[in-house]
């Protein structure tokens, strides 16, 4: 591993940008190159990257980040309903409102640390979810989810032009924000979010957060007040979640309460750990894998399996289909659970750690071929 330097960071940025923008190309062979899933990759990538700013840098494990995702979505849909179908105000409102919400929750929750903090955030998120699902239905439209209707005032749009027939589309100055344009909009947001995250990781502020993580007690003994730093990290990551939530609404203008449920909060934790906590690209990878499983693995059915294994002799084919059938389609949860276990057992540190190991294996081998001793451990940075 090399020492982070501005030059390496720019290379990383360039590679990341290229990889994200080229997703429709290189994800095509595995069946993931269609707009909705690509959008989800980008959106949940943002969510996980933001979560990682809190969890990866400070070690504070929030179990309630889905609340901010939900708030972002609701705010964005309300912006579409009340103001305009232009996505920029929606994204702005979603992010800012989630940030404000994060200030409130963070201010209270950060009074505690460790699992007590986790449970506080969980409690706030679950309260938000339960209320949004039922009592707050006038604001959230409950179980059905907040949707656009023909009766929405949309004051700005309607002042400019008469409403057309049917529901309007979310748009960015005339470009419809669904399909590929929607993906590229999310992708640009993802790249910006990644860049900001990179800058935070490299900044004195990021270093300070890491210092808090590695020795909170010592820092507080020296009379240093860590809470403002933690709060800023919490709010930033809440805003990332809000951004992700508003982008969900941008690409698909519906906001449901279940977005705030604990399982959704748990999902982003899993994404982050799966990819690699505290790494820059890990959370993005984890998000991609979980969303891929949810959308592609769940869609395999017997018909498709029979197609895949058609080449096998009949008897064997039936067995193979039956066995693989356990893990795909309705069994995709089983695969996901097994994947969590395998990765965390064999690759502590997540996928990024796995990639690092593979790389160091090859590097060592090539060094050895050149007669360089390799029994010195790699200095970690």
């Amino acid at each position, binding site marked *: 591993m090399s020492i982070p330097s501005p030059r390496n960071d720019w290379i990383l940025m360039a590679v990341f940008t290229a990889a994200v923008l080229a997703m429709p190309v290189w994800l095509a062979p595995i069946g993931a190159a269609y707009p909705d899933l690509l959008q989800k990759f980008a959106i949940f990538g943002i969510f996980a990257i933001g979560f990682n700013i809190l969890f990866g840098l400070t070690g504070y494990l929030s179990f309630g980040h889905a609340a901010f995702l939900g708030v972002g979505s609701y705010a964005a849909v309300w912006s579409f309903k009340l103001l305009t179908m232009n996505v920029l105000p929606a994204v702005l409102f979603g992010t800012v409102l989630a940030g404000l919400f994060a200030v409130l929750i963070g201010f*209270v929750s950060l009074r505690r640390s*460790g*699992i*007590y903090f986790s*449970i506080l955030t*969980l409690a706030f998120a679950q309260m938000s979810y339960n209320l949004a699902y039922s009592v707050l239905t006038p604001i959230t439209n409950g179980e059905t989810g907040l949707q656009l209707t023909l009766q929405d005032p949309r004051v700005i749009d309607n002042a400019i032009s008469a409403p057309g027939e049917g529901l309007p589309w979310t748009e960015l100055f005339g470009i419809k924000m669904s399909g590929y344009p929607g993906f590229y909009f999310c992708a640009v947001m993802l790249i910006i979010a990644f860049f900001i995250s990179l800058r935070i990781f490299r900044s004195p502020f990021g270093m300070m957060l890491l210092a808090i993580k590695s020795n909170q007690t010592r820092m507080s003994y020296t009379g240093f007040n860590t809470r403002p730093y933690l709060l800023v990290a919490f709010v930033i990551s809440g805003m990332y979640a809000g951004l992700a939530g508003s982008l969900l609404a941008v690409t698909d203008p519906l906001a449901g309460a279940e977005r705030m449920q604990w399982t959704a909060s748990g999902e982003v934790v*899993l994404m982050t750990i799966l990819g690699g906590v505290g790494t820059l690209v890990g959370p993005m990878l984890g998000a991609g894998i979980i969303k891929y499983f949810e959308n592609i693995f769940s869609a395999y059915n017997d018909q498709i399996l029979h197609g895949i294994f058609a080449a096998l002799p009949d008897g064997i084919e039936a067995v193979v289909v039956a066995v693989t059938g356990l893990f795909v389609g309705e069994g995709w949860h*089983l695969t996901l*659970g097994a994947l969590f276990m395998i990765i*965390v057992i064999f690759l502590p540190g997540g996928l990024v750690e796995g990639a690092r190991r593979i790389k160091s294996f090859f590097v060592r081998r090539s060094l050895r071929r050149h007669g360089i001793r390799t029994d010195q451990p790699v200095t970690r940075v």
Partner: protein
Amino acid sequence: MDAFLLQVLNGLDKGGAYALIALGLTLVFGTLGVVNFAHGALFMLGAFCAVSLQQLLTISKKIKDPSVTFFDAFKETPYMEIWFGDAGTAIISYSVPLSILLAIPVMLLVGLIMERGLIQFFYKRSHAEQILVTFGLAIVIQELIKVAFGANPIPQAAPPIFAGTAPVGHWIGLGDAVVYPWWRMIYLFFSGVVIFAVFAFLRYTTYGMVVRAGMADRETVGLLGINIQRRFTIVFGIAAVVAGLAGVMYTPILPPDYHLGMEFLVLSFVVVVVGGMGSLPGAVSAGFLLGILQSFASMNEVKNIFPGIDQIIIYLVAVVILLVLPRGLMGRKGVMES
């Protein structure tokens, strides 16, 4: 007054269930230092011990219904009834309490295998990794149960002598209007017994003393020549048994399905944390406290003033308690704070 008393009973009953689940979770955390997200799955496995025994006992002679011709529809008569007559019927009707006998060895084995096969490798790993791996395990377990038993709940009946309601009001001179289901009374009694047994085991046996010592200071116990790890493995097995028994006894109240564990998972963590991580009395008192508060918050009189309060009361109380008492009701300093 009647309504009040009934809600107290409800609260105690709920609290008993919460306390039982939280007890095992705390026991594992206090001894092994492991955050076990698969604990709910153990509860669910216990419930499925009851389901399995019931299905075993009701293996039936199938008599085809002749009016149905397109597929096989059967009127089923369990062989137990055919072979043993009324005695067979009686045994079947007691399948839930009988499953306790099945659940104890099964859950102990499951617990030991889980600890030796997986958990032991995670003692020194971060809590986040423990959460991920045990959560993965929980998913795997529940999906396997789904493959075996389907996703639909499978009803379990309480034994007929515990059907119906107990005249609680009559006992305490409040009139016959106050009644409470027998099985729930049994459950309350049962959770009391199990909680008492666990505490007595820890308090009054030498083994329990060693475990308590190990919970307080693992390193020093090791310095005294005791292989505390082996004892903790047994404790994990005991925790699995406690969770399993809680699951078995809960089946007549809540027909179990594969997802049962996840439904209790978050709640049981809230209970444990509100009680204070690693504190057994804390977990038990938090269980009862939250159970009772939840019952009262569900009363119409309360709901009319605070709409939706019954849906958030547990979390609201958790927030308030954690803000007032930094480590929950009885938590120790420095546990799970970093």
